[in-house]
């Protein structure tokens, strides 16, 4: 039995950078819904890591597939970093439950499924020690057009606080809340020069980069026997200060 860090959303943006940072020193179980990207990643970081093909939208199958995958690979998960997420700018007037539901599945419901598998003794023993959710400052501040996204991240952080109590003292659970950073997910936003200049104006330290967020994730990932749990760590260049 080998211990792995499970990373979702691992084939792009913050997740990808996290994978590249952690892969030299840790065994990773990389989760993605693009087979091509997973294969590409396998070529660049190597065979010693595990690659789990899973569409998080298919929430109903996560429990069965992940349990089986861990069993078949004799893998135990001791750390879980949830990076998978989708964003969408829709004014509240135009929101409907169907479109919000899709976002909730990827940003929130899938996390619940994964955590419940990883906490199952018959699947993962008592291996899990550390959970990090990549949330967003949208969880704690309102931004126009982010109704669904804010709700999903708010749900994630509320859930985080609860499980930090339920799973203590064995597991520490924390969230990292990035401000606006340039990733494939936020690509459309960053193509608009007006928005970029606006963002640069409102962020005291200017717009951030993926690296700044990954530094924070890596810091909490590498902490052993930490006493920090149930916390939200804002990484936003001072925007919400």
């Amino acid at each position, binding site marked *: 039995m080998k211990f792995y860090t499970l990373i979702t959303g691992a084939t792009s943006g913050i997740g990808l950078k996290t994978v590249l940072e952690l892969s030299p020193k840790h065994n990773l179980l990389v989760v993605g*819904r*693009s*087979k*091509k990207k*997973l294969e590409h990643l396998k070529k660049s970081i190597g065979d010693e890591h*595990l*690659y*789990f*093909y*899973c569409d998080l939208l298919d929430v109903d*199958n996560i429990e*069965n*597939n992940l349990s*089986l*995958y*861990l*069993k*078949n*690979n004799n893998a135990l998960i001791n750390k879980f970093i949830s990076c998978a997420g989708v964003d969408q700018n829709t004014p509240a007037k135009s929101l409907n439950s169907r479109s919000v539901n899709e976002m909730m599945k990827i940003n929130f419901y899938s996390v619940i499924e994964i955590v419940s598998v990883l906490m199952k003794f018959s699947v993962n023993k008592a291996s899990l020690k550390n959970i990090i959710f990549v949330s967003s400052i949208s969880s704690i501040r309102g931004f126009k057009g982010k109704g669904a996204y804010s709700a999903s991240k708010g749900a994630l952080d509320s859930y985080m606080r609860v499980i930090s109590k339920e799973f203590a003292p064995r597991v520490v659970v924390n969230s990292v809340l990035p401000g606006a950073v340039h990733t494939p997910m936020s690509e459309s936003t960053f193509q608009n020069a007006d928005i970029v200049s606006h963002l640069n104006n409102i962020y005291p330290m200017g717009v951030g980069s993926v690296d700044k967020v990954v530094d924070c994730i890596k810091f909490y990932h590498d902490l052993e026997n930490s006493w920090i749990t149930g916390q939200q760590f804002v990484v936003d260049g001072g925007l919400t200060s």
Partner: protein
Amino acid sequence: MNLSFKGKKITDIVSVVPENVSRFVDELHQYSFPVEKSLKLKDIMGFNEHRVAPEDVTAADMCEFGFNYLVDSKGLNPASIDALIFISHTPDHFVPPTSSILHGKLGLKEDCLCFDINHGCAGFIVGLQQAFMLLENVGINRVALLNGDTLSRKVSKKDRNSYPVVGDAGSVAIIENSSDTNPINVFTKNRGKDSLVLKIPAGGSRMPSTHETSILKDIGDGNFRSLDNLEMEGASVFAFVQSEVPKMVDEILKTEGLNKDDIDFFVLHQPNRFMLEKLADKIGVSRNKVPNNIVENFGNSNSVTIPINITFNLKNILTSNRSTKLLLAGFGVGLTWSGLVLDINNINTCELIEFKKEIK
């Protein structure tokens, strides 16, 4: 013939169907019959929707897709496969065996046996029997059984009696030795003297395919067919099924010491809705216990109808803790008829997935 085995189990079943749905109501113009007359048959026969693979996709492609799904999403280790069986009427080539091609594509180890078996309707049971026999050998602990067919290309599009009921599909079943000591009895019978009542006349050595064999001809009842197409003596096949399958079911139940009530579901090959209903009545079981919705949703895909039936209708039951008793039976091409009783619970994988050509 009845062969008895011990300590075997199916751990995973995945069926794969093409994304493309073809609807009977959209095909009506292909046929030479009055629309109203064809529509009358819709509910009786189960002419409704069927799956048709894109032209460049073969049965082996769908099997490969299903196997890779098990590897990528369920963590199946390809190196753990000790034997691969591919059962189909529609191989990639005459030479080499399609199982060899798949062996390469799936990245299996060299210490792995590969077989092609040319079989149809009874092909899933025939395959299980082969897998069980292989597993009796020391050194073989896990067998991949791949069933697949692209029947839509073997049936004339102007054959209203056959085209609406056929579909393309593939399936993968993983079979292992287990500590379960309950015996599994597999029944098989063959009637080779009637083998040509269900056939594709041309394309083999007896009658190579030529331009002539590909010409569609009115066969007298308003349906058009060529010698390259599947043809059958419908009435003979029907009579054979109605007389032999119920007898076999009785024999199986007698050997197992079971009553019809003890069986939770009769998972039978799916030729068409009418035949299945008649068969259920003849066997003497409630039609509810004989799932009969594969033709109208996917089409008859030869040996894949049983795996599709299991994954489409019984997923929730078979993945639960409760043990479910299934009687599986296949019948047709050969003429071969075969069946067995299986107790299944907590199956690892029981899924129906759609074949996607473009992988994101």
